[in-house]
């Protein structure tokens, strides 16, 4: 690691982004359940209440529709709210404000307003919290024009992308995988941002492409490491943003390797994997040696028992074997 970096967790990287953006802009404020005194259930907002006080770090009652509705109103009238929804499973209660209001107000009013709102929320299974606290619902929001959807996988990306999200004039939903908060990685010192809408070629390779989102980067890397020992070189692309989608990078890679697997923790049906498969088929059909393969969460509610839950989420083993069948 260079002297311009340190190793910190995703939790700390997000926390730093919030500190820096609140410092930069007085209009930025935080709102959410248990984010102040408690510092958030995942401790991501620790220290912010002490530093910025209760007028800018607002502990709210349990009222997702109300909180997001207020944030929409505040965003349209000159403020930059950053709302935390504890689990993305709870965005269902605020879905009207996200889908019918935040996403559409600019368009419906003929471009008269902007809604510079960020909703931070958590996704991901693996914590043994069963069907209502483990979903990955990012594809839902990517379906809606007018919203941006970001889902970083590394500390450096989490920090840089959250800063971009807060500076963006559009509603951005920022998904944090709850199992990755302790994930460590190098983060540049000092000010930087990462643009929304750019995928990251995490590792380059010639034999096959794995396109992944959020925490699915890690089993993908594990599988790629094993394949490397067998002389198979995998290109790994971390999407980082699913809306807007960096099609160009994906298609270029598909054209190069001719074999593509998409891995995402959302339900497999009608989700991110399907959309990416379609885009690659449209953009690189003549270069493909076989259909685009997909691994998503099993189409069942996330179960509680570890033996059951683990079975529903794409694993390094699955990724490994799918790629083996592809390239052999």
């Amino acid at each position: 690691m260079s002297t311009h970096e340190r190793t910190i967790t995703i939790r700390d990287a997000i926390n730093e982004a919030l500190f820096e953006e609140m410092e930069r802009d007085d209009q930025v404020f935080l709102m959410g359940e248990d984010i102040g005194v408690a510092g958030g259930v995942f401790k991501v907002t620790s220290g912010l209440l002490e530093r910025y006080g209760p007028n800018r770090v607002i502990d709210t009652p349990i009222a997702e529709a109300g909180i997001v509705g207020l944030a929409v109103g505040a965003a349209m009238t000159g403020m930059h709210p950053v709302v935390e929804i504890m689990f993305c499973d709870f965005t269902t209660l605020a879905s009207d404000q996200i889908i019918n209001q935040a996403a559409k107000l600019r368009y419906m009013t003929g471009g008269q307003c902007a809604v510079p709102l960020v909703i931070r929320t958590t996704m991901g299974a693996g914590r043994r919290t069963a069907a209502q606290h483990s979903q990955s619902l990012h594809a839902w929001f990517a379906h809606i024009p007018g919203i941006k959807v970001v889902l970083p996988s590394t500390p450096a990306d989490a920090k840089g992308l959250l800063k971009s999200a807060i500076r963006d004039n559009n509603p951005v939903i920022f998904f944090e995988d709850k199992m990755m908060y302790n994930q460590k990685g190098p983060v540049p010192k000092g000010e930087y941002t990462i643009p929304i809408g750019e995928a990251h070629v995490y590792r380059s390779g010639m034999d096959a492409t794995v396109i992944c989102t959020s925490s699915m980067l890690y089993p993908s890397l594990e599988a790629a490491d094993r394949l490397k020992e067998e002389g198979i070189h995998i290109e790994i692309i971390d999407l980082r943003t699913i809306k807007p989608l960096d099609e160009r990078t994906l298609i270029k890679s598909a054209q190069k390797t001719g074999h593509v697997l998409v891995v995402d923790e959302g339900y497999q049906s009608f989700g991110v994997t399907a959309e990416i498969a379609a885009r690659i088929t449209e953009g690189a059909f003549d270069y493909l040696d076989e259909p685009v393969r997909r691994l998503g969460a099993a189409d069942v509610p996330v179960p509680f028992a570890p033996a059951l839950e683990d079975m529903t989420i794409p694993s390094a083993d699955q990724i490994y074997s799918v790629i083996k069948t592809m390239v052999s």
Partner: protein
Amino acid sequence: MDRKNQEELPSDLTKEQLLAMYRKMQLIRGFEGTAKKYFEAGEIGGFLHLSVGQEAVPVGTCSALRKDDYITSTHRGHGDVLSKGCEVKRMFAELYGRTDGYCKGKGGSMHIADFSQGIIGANGIVSSGIPIAVGAALSIRMRGTDQVAVSFFGDGATAEGSFHEALNLASLWQVPVIFVCQNNLYALSQPWSHSARDGNLVERAQSYHIPAESVDGMDVIAVYRSVEKAVDRARSGDGPTFIEARTYRFMGHYVGDPGAYMPEEEQEEWRKKDAIAKLRRQLKMWGYLTDKVDEQIATDIEAELQDGIEYARSSVIPEPREALNDVYVHFDYLGRPLKEESNHA
């Protein structure tokens, strides 16, 4: 207030103010009638929810507001936005789906907004403008201005969760918002008694510790006075107010709904309370309005409405490609273009 007092010459409103209210109520009624005519003629499409009968509520309310105060409105919002300052011609252009409409033809009847006058949107989702208005009020407090935010909504909206969350949050944080419920006794086909067991909205708001009163929504002066008090309270930092204005929809839910579920006798009874007729009577009694001036007002409004229709008809139909614009803001917080555009294949 007894009848005698009510008919007394108001000392808090000038002749000009009262005539402006009268004119505005007439304008709204004329607007709705004209919109209906051209809707039925097939020139205007979509849904058309008319506010005929309810004019006193938005006119009384907005007469107590400043240009920089905010309002949110509903599917039945023509009267609300006209009262806050929208122009007839650009509203018609919007109803006609033309480029000169307030929303460039992208919103239509249910979504008229004019941010330059604090009209931060009418809304097609029942109750969803209420938390948005509370958010605007929160923003007012954070930015330290003395604006206020008004949320207009119907009786039907009070059964939605958003209504209750919004009242609770407004009360908790004491933000400068005024809830104006236009209780026209119907939510589509459902009478008020089917929306709430007790029907007492004042008590309901008070249970959130929000000062509340019910006013005669067929009396523009009563509405104005109630809102004016609420505005004073909000501007001086004393938090939200809830106002129920009892009123009546003289027509069906939208153009095309005959409103067969509204009993004839009930309709007749409310028509007798018509707010425009009432103010006309009062203005004449106070010597503020002659038959001649009254006729002149009617003629002027008729001309304004006809001009508005002509303006809408001759406004350019949007280029189909325009459908793809205004989804996102394409510049960052410093006004620089966003980079992402280049990644779309």
